[in-house]
């Protein structure tokens, strides 16, 4: 049991290598290995959740070396929550992937699957590590895999990803610099040790510099406004599978890392009082929510709309950090899983539509409700969740954020949450309306191609792509109705440091 924290990234890392070589011999072998490896890691994560609930925190020291020398892995309620989400989304996407990859990026399957496993290994590592330096290593592993997965998109993807690479490298550099400062003043890299030593050093300039650098670096990677500029192009031009995998979990993991620093490395009072980082993050989140939502309304490309919406939605998580009270942060953390399910579902739906009709422009979506009824049922659920209609998951994270705003007495945050729900209602109902309109009888205006007649000949997506999408839609409903299980058992203990 105690090996679980190391076992999850270990399995995924091994899967990545094995799948690469198996894939060189035969693509289907590589795929089978990836499914097996990610599936196994998902099962181990679930076992990890039950172990944490029964026995409490699990710590594992790699090679038997005790910290501060050895590398520590920690499975506590929050990391169990994150890693289950990461492997769960990963498993859903890998089941979905083959048809879509073969259609959108033919000939690249052999490298696609190992990259997915590598990405998940990196993200799982970030979640589980108990060491600020290893966190850097894993976040860069994940980033490298992400660059590869995103750059194989259409013609414009490599340029967009190059920008992302520069932003990401700068972010990583900031973070690493911060780690250096921290090591210089505290003499350790282990999170638990740091937590003990830092309180004496609150006035130390290098600790303050470290906190600022690390949060800025992670803020770049999580696309926190106004450092989000790399994101829209990247998600826009990426293959559906990559966007469906990376949009839900990649930026969230950086947000999670900030929460870790906030709660467990530096004491909450440092981020709130000594150095008002949470306040700053909260106000940046306000900007992100408004800018992301308003720009999402202006987009006609479905994927680009989702990308801007992601900028807004990641800001909800940041808003939870900014509120810095238990219920607000719970709202932010719950939004990590909610948004992962919703946005994953939506990007994969985009993939289904692209596979069957080749369409990405919202104004041409008319008639899809009839042509792809099940995909569009899933879309309806995901869209309602994005708007925040109960009892879908999206409602509850916003509700907790509202409760947190009331607790904090911050009426501007309160108003922004309310206004942004209206804005997302505008851009999602616009798509819903288009989808359920009858397809035009004859080709009008642009086009005249095979889909110009309005009828979509492809019909419903194949089962391998439909089932994952529907599974995510069902998960959106279940997480909504049973959100208290997650909140009570995993998130309440995680935010306990705030209650002190």
């Amino acid at each position: 049991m105690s090996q679980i924290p190391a076992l999850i990234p270990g399995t995924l890392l091994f899967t990545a290598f094995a799948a690469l070589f198996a894939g060189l011999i035969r693509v289907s072998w590589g795929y089978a290995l990836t499914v097996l490896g990610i599936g196994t890691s998902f099962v181990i994560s679930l076992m990890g959740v039950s172990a944490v609930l029964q026995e409490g925190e699990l710590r594992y020291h790699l090679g038997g070396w005790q910290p501060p020398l050895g590398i520590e892995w920690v499975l506590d309620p929050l990391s169990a929550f994150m890693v289950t989400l990461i492997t769960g989304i990963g498993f859903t996407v890998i089941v979905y992937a083959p048809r879509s990859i073969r259609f959108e990026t033919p000939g690249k399957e052999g490298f696609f699957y190992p990259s997915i496993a590598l990405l998940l290994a990196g993200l799982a590592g970030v979640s589980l590590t108990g060491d600020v330096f290893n966190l850097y290593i894993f976040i860069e592993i994940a980033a490298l895999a992400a660059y590869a997965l995103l750059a194989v998109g259409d013609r414009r993807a490599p340029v967009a990803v190059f920008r992302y690479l520069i932003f990401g490298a700068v972010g990583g550099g900031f973070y690493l610099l911060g780690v250096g400062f921290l090591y210089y003043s505290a003499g350790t890299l282990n999170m638990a040790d740091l937590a003990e030593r830092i309180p004496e050093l609150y006035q130390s300039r290098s600790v303050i510099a470290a906190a600022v650098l690390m949060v800025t670096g992670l803020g770049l990677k999580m696309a926190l406004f106004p450092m989000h500029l790399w994101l829209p192009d990247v998600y826009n031009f990426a293959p559906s599978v990559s966007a469906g995998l990376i949009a839900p979990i990649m930026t969230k993991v950086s947000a999670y890392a900030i929460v870790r620093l906030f709660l467990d490395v530096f004491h909450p009072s440092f981020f709130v009082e000594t150095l008002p980082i949470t306040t700053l993050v909260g106000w940046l989140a306000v900007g992100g929510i408004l800018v992301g939502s308003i720009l999402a309304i202006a987009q006609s490309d479905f994927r680009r709309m989702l990308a801007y919406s992601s900028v807004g939605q990641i800001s909800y998580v940041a808003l939870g950090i900014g509120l810095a009270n238990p219920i607000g942060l719970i709202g932010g953390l719950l939004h990590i899983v909610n948004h992962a399910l919703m946005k994953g579902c939506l990007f994969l739906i985009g993939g289904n539509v692209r596979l069957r009709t080749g369409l990405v422009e919202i104004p041409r979506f008319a008639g899809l409700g009839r042509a792809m009824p099940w995909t569009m049922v899933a879309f309806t659920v995901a869209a309602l969740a994005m708007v925040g209609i109960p009892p879908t998951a999206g409602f509850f994270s916003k509700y907790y954020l509202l409760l947190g705003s009331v607790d904090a007495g911050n009426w501007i945050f309160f108003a922004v949450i309310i206004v942004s729900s209206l804005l997302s209602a505008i851009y999602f109902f616009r798509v819903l309306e288009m989808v359920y309109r009858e397809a035009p009888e004859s080709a009008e205006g642009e086009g005249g191609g095979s889909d110009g007649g309005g009828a979509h000949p492809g019909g419903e997506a194949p089962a391998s792509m439909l089932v994952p999408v529907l599974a995510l839609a069902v998960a959106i409903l279940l997480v909504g109705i049973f959100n208290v299980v997650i909140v009570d058992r995993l998130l309440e203990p995680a935010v306990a440091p705030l209650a002190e």
Partner: protein
Amino acid sequence: METLLDLRPLFAILVSAAAAVAIAFTGRHPNLRETWSVLAAVVKFLLVASMAPGVLAGETYEVDLVQLAPGIELGLRVDAAGLLFALSASFLWILTSFYSMGYMRGLSEHKQTRFYAMLATCLSATIGLCFSANVLTFVVFYEILSVATYPLVIHAESEKAWRIGRQYLIYAITAGIALVGGTALIQQTAGTLDFAPGGFLDAGIGTGTLWVIFLCFFIGFGVKAGVMPLHSWLPNAMIAPTPVSALLHAVAVVKAGVFGFVRLVGYIFGPELLGDIGAATVLATFAAVTILLASCIALMKDDLKARLAYSTVGHLSYIVLGVALLVPHALLGAAFHMVTHAAMKITLFFCAGAIYVHTGKKKVSELDGIGRQMPVTLAAFGIGAVGLAGVPLVGGFVSKWYLAAGTVDAGALVFLGVLLLSGILNAAYLVPIVTRAFFRSSEAHPRFNEASLFMVIPISITAVLSLLLGTHPDGLFRFFSVAEAMVASVTGISFAGGGP
């Protein structure tokens, strides 16, 4: 007072949700599909009615399902107020189910499966909010109701319908979000969300916060209840098929808003507190202005459904006014008017629909002499019309009598004047329709030739029901006693009982 664990409220909600699923899957077999609808309506009504004797005997049925948010259950509780609304809505759904068959088949409407499925979903949500034990549960069902009504509003799928659908959504979503905000405020300031007869908020929260809460709920409920200036979606929504106008936009959806005001005044604030902070006067003023303006506008409308829609706007505000007067008699009148207006207005809408299906006529000016062709329908229309004007022996008289008595009790003779003036206006815009239909001759109308029995029989039943409510207010389903029980629980004052 006895509290019993009982699953009937849950089944009453689920039966029509199950029917919606069954309807969706049997769309190819119209007879089977509509059997589900009727069956669910009957079962639902029997479930609701079976709880009436117990509630009158002072029992409360309740069941908690899951936690929606930490400390807040998805709780159902059947009390007199909820039962009153549920009884009328579920009974009228039975009649609407039959009527819809005549109407939808008579016009060979498209997408009938969607129509029946969404109608069933709406009824589920309506009964859900009747039986909600706390504000958050109420909001969940309220939002589901808002969204489920949308496909019915855009049923025609013309450009105009889409445009009206957008308007409807903006109003409904804004209202929903305002409610969610108000709920969050209550939860964090009062610490509980459970409805309690006589209210659970206390003045210690602070007048400013109480006003903000009131404002949120005023917007939230005012939109559905059509309180001016939040009403303008309602006349437009008459573009929906007539059964929808009849059941949802005269009974279920709009009464959900009115019922919200009942909950707000009687079970959240409590009459005393709402009066103390002065919000009751504001509410009453808005309602009184709405009553007069809506009646005047109705007078000018030539389109029959538009005239009825404005009449609905006015009559909804009768109930709001009665609630806002805070005195027992007014509350009793308001509660009973929820039932009598439902019966009378659904009769009028049913008649308008029957005339349209049978003769294609929509305008008041085209109805000269139609009484000879459709005497049963027009006689029923006459009963509803004089009832709404407040003529004795029809249900409307009883409820208006108590409302008037309430204005005297409250010492607000201005509102008595409003009620009397509006009664005259009611007569002026409804009665001429009947007199023209019977006493003016026109070549256009042949001799006796009634609409389909599927429509005429429900029309006759609702007309007779309107009469019975006037002559024996407590004879049928004991509506009057239930209303009295509700007033007694809120104000602590019980009447002698037994009706007027």
